[in-house]
């Protein structure tokens, strides 16, 4: 049996420990916000946080999550209590088909948590593992930039000083 924390709740899974975390979250725990895009770690649609780091869960055996904290898009925020990135996504009209966006936001949230004042280059680097077939990149970038240095208590003047 594999036990881990899922969005703050302790859960356990008794199936095949090689099952990728993505399918355990979607089909066992019925959280459908994380998506399947390639199953090969190439697109980022399945991105979640494992102990705070962005990770592609379609190639991560659930066993690797044992005793760790898994956060999905549902745990990041919800329509009533949005994460600042989610507000920025709405403000910038980012999504088109929307299918990649949970993964995009999770990747961005890990970046912002680690580097609150992320620059354009930081964003390019951190987000290049996430494909958006609809091509929302300019807006994804603008939305992240609007949060970088403005939210989470970050001091914007430090960004200016650096750039």
């Amino acid at each position, binding site marked *: 049996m594999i036990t881990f924390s899922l969005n703050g709740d302790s859960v356990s899974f008794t199936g095949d420990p090689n099952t990728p975390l993505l399918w355990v979250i979607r089909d066992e725990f019925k959280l*459908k916000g994380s998506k399947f895009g390639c199953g090969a770690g190439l697109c980022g649609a399945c991105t979640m946080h494992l102990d705070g780091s962005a990770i592609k869960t379609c190639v991560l055996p659930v066993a690797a999550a044992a005793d760790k904290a898994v956060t999905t898009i549902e745990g990041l925020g919800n329509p009533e209590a949005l994460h600042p990135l989610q507000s920025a*996504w709405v403000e910038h*009209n980012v999504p088109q088909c929307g299918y990649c966006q949970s993964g995009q936001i999770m990747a961005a949230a890990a970046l912002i948590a680690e580097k609150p004042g992320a620059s354009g280059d930081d964003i390019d680097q951190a987000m290049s593992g996430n494909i958006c*077939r609809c091509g929302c990149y300019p807006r994804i970038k603008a939305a992240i930039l609007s949060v970088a240095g403005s939210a989470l208590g970050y001091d914007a003047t430090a960004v200016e000083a650096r750039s």
Partner: protein
Amino acid sequence: MSNQTLSRRHFLKTSGLIGGGVVVAVALPGCAFQGPHPIEVADSGFVPNAFLQITPDNNVIFYCPSDEMGQGIRTGLATIVGEELDVDPATMLVKAAGSHEDYNNPEFGVQGTGGSNAVRVFYEPLRQVGADTRALLLNAASLELGIPSDQLRTDRGFVIVGDNRYPYGDFVETASTLEMPVASPLKAPSDFQYIGADAPRIDALAKATGTASFGIDADLPGMVYAVVVRPPVAGSKALKYDDSAARVAPGVQAIVPVSSGIAVIAEGYWQANQAAKKLTVVWEENALSAVTSQQVRRDLKTALDADDDTESTHEGDPDKAFAAADMILETDYYAPFLAHAPMEPLNATLHITEDGAELWTGVQFVGAAQGVLERLTGLPRGDIKIHNQFLGGGFGRRATLSHIVEVAEIAMSIDKPVQLLWSREDDLRHGFYRPAAMMKIKATTDEEGRVTAWQARRSGANITAQTMKNALPGVLPSMPTSLLNGLVGVMDYVFDNWAVDGSSVEGLHETYSLPSYRVSHASVDHGLPTTFWRSVGHSYTSFAVESMMDELAEARQIDPVALRLKNLEGKPRMQNVVAQAGKLMADMSVPETHHLGFAAHSSFGTDVAQIAEVSVTNGNIRVHKVTCVVDCGLAVNPDIVRAQLEGAVMFALTATLYGQIDLDGGAVVQSNFHNYPILRMNESPAVDVVIINSDTPPTGIGEPGVPPLAPAVANAVYRATGQRLRDLPLQLT
């Protein structure tokens, strides 16, 4: 009545709905619907068969007839109906319409989304729906309040009398007893408050929080999962298979042959996916089995060199003009097969019970999906419900129905709800593709750069006949299979021998005013399935035409924009777009190592010009910025127009730099994003969009941003390197 235009000759109906408010149904021109509307109230709420529902507590629900695949159509159509209804679209609840002929696309005659036509074809009818419904509510309010309706106003979902505001919902009960007004006056565009203004997408919040529901998210109690092992070569059949290892793999419930391959059904998707790898199948060989990409290219070229193509259209006498020419360019351009690769792999969830069938999926042709189920299950159409979800990308891929056929065959073999899921490998290897195209353009101009003769020929597979093959069983569910096959055979024969499939050659001459031209076609089909791919024929014809325009400008030593303008007499809209874009380009200052390329193309009623800013380092092409000028008539939501052009640029740039589906032994080589790369953020250009101010009715926007990009980049690469690249994807040698 007699002087009403066809598009206004629709009628509206109302119907009381206990507890559910007033429902407005509209029959659009060309629809067969005449009788009373079959309105149902289910536990889950209203089962839709109409566009608008207004509840007593003043919620306005709009049932959107077009499928949302990212193009923003739910927001766009809600804006159109909300404008005349006088309800802020942002406050409406917008739902996907169920399947009913009242939702038929007026131009297609079936319920479907494609061809960038939704805003154009629903613009007037949905305004009328909004206006007539508002008039009905005013009549009801007038009765209840005892005030003549011409003394009442409306404002954002309220009827206004002096200082009093009454919610629309107060009047729905009375409204449901009244006759629906017809042909109520529409607003003057100068009075619009929502149409033409930037506004948030209605689906942005759901999509930013992971709460938007896609087909893949359907989850029914007791549901099992299916994957299908398909032949490496399209259309080949299993001669024999060994499932002894797969059958005993964990979670496996059944293994059943279906018409496209062998289905493995298991408790979980992962289990089905793992078990499928244990299946060994011997596939038959077919005509496609020996085909390689090199052969396709060769055959397409041979077909044009043979010179026996079928004429599509001509004007004047190009041969005479060529005979008199002092300079003739004749050049081949090539574009390969492409896959759509929508982000959400194909899937469908079907539950068949004694009472009927329910399908959760995302398709561009809801009516045809329903027809497929009707044909295969034998259930009456009324007992088949389609819950069309958000589409995780379409681009034409979800206009096909093979996954609906598969899920029906699987569900009929097992007494449980079943979800069929394609992997990315399935998607890339077993798809329907944008056909490869060889184009030979022969052209000449006078000394000022005015084209005097133009000959454009294309060889390759057609789309329409193949797509119809796929769609007809669903569109004509009761036609016997033998007759269907006959019909398809006739279509193939016609396109091979007499007529040209318009979508194969579209865009080869239409952008410009050419005094003499001939467009012709040679059908060469190796058997790889083809279908519409965002912008269809325009996706390759623009590459040939707009590369040639630059080649002509070079030959005549004329500025490429000036040459285009000379050939746009009589096309004032495109002339303006090109002139505006040309001005922007002339004023651009770019670093010395960056070069600009220009292209313009008309498609789906919309005119687009693009300027690509490109640099080339060590043979690597980098696109830094793309500036788009677009005239799409009135932009219903300018921010969505901008987003569609941004997205189209990225989609087209993927094809321009990387896109290539190869065949080896008839099988598709590419399998996932490592060898079918999609443009990533670190490679993506900035995009500037200039929308020409217009109050003419809206035209398409989902596709027209795609065609000009490849030639704009190729033209810039030529300026940067002196190499004229005539094959897509662009690769420097």
